[in-house]
C-alpha cells in the first residue's frame, strides 16, 4: 500500500516538475542590469573582449543538449553579422560559473558590446528567438 502511494506521488510530482521545466527550458530571459566589477572581470578572464556582442556558452561533457545548443549558436553567428561565439567547459570554470550564477548546462549568456550580460538562456534556445535577441543587442551597440 505504501509502495503504491510512493509510485503515485512520485509520478504526479515528477509530471508537474517536467511540465514546469519544459516551460522554462530554452526560454530567453532578461537579466537585471546589475553589472558588478567581479562579473566583468570574470568575463574578461574567460576570454571575452568588449566591442561586439558575444554568445557565451557554458557546456559540459555530461550534457546531451549542449551539442544542439552549439549548432543553434553557430547558425545565429551565420545569420547575424558581428556576433562572437565563445564556449567554455563549466567544470573547468567553476569560479566563473559561480560568479555568473550558472547552475546547469547548457547555459548561454548574451553579453553586449560593453561586456555586460544582457540576457541568458538555459536549455536549447529557439533559433528565431535567439536571432531576435542578438539583433537587439547589435542594434543597441550601433546606436
Amino acid at each position, binding site marked *: 500500500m505504501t*509502495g*503504491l502511494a*510512493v509510485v503515485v506521488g512520485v509520478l504526479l510530482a515528477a509530471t508537474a*516538475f517536467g511540465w514546469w521545466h519544459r516551460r522554462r527550458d530554452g526560454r530567453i530571459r532578461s537579466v537585471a542590469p546589475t553589472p558588478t566589477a567581479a562579473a566583468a572581470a570574470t568575463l574578461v578572464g574567460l576570454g571575452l573582449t568588449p566591442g561586439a556582442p558575444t554568445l557565451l556558452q557554458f557546456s559540459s561533457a555530461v*550534457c546531451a543538449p549542449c551539442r544542439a545548443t552549439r549548432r543553434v549558436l553557430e547558425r545565429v553567428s551565420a545569420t547575424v553579422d558581428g556576433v562572437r561565439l565563445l564556449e567554455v567547459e*563549466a567544470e573547468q570554470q567553476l569560479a566563473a560559473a559561480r560568479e555568473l550564477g550558472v547552475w546547469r548546462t547548457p547555459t548561454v549568456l548574451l553579453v553586449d558590446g560593453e561586456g555586460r550580460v544582457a540576457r541568458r538562456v538555459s536549455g536549447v534556445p529557439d533559433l528565431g528567438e535567439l536571432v531576435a535577441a542578438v539583433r537587439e543587442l547589435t542594434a543597441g551597440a550601433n546606436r
Partner: protein
Amino acid sequence: MLLDPRAPRFAAAVTTVVLAGALLVGGTPLLVGQAVVFAITAADPRLGPYGWLYRTLVAPRLAAPTELEPAAPVRFAQLVGLLFVAVALVGQFTGLPVLALAATGAALAAAFLNATFGLCLGCLGYLTLRRLIGRPMTARVPASS
C-alpha cells in the same frame, strides 16, 4: 562513443517500469537486477541490457536516427541511478524501509522524467554538484590551526 538518443529514452522507460514494480511488490530482486543493469550500462552503454533490447526489438522497426548523442550524459545518469538503488538496497537490508522507499522513489522520478520529458539529469545535476562539492581547496582552512 555516440548513441542513438532513442536508446537511452527506451532504457529509461523500462527502468521506470522496473522501479515502479519494485515499489509496488516490494521486490528486492528487482532492485538488485536494476542495480546490475545500471552498473553495466554506466561502465559501457553499448553493453547495457535495455540498450540491447532496444537494438533487437525496437530499432529494426524505426528509421535510422537523424542525429547521435554522446555517451557521457547517459553514463552519468546511470551512475546516479546506481547510487540511488544502492542506497535503497542498504535501506532494505538494514531494516530502514523509509530509506529504501525514498531512494527508490528518487530513482523512479529521475527515470520517469528522462523517459517522458527527455530530461537530461547530467545537465541539471552535474554542474550543481560540482559547484557544491568542488570548492577550491584553498578556501578550506585546517581545523587544527
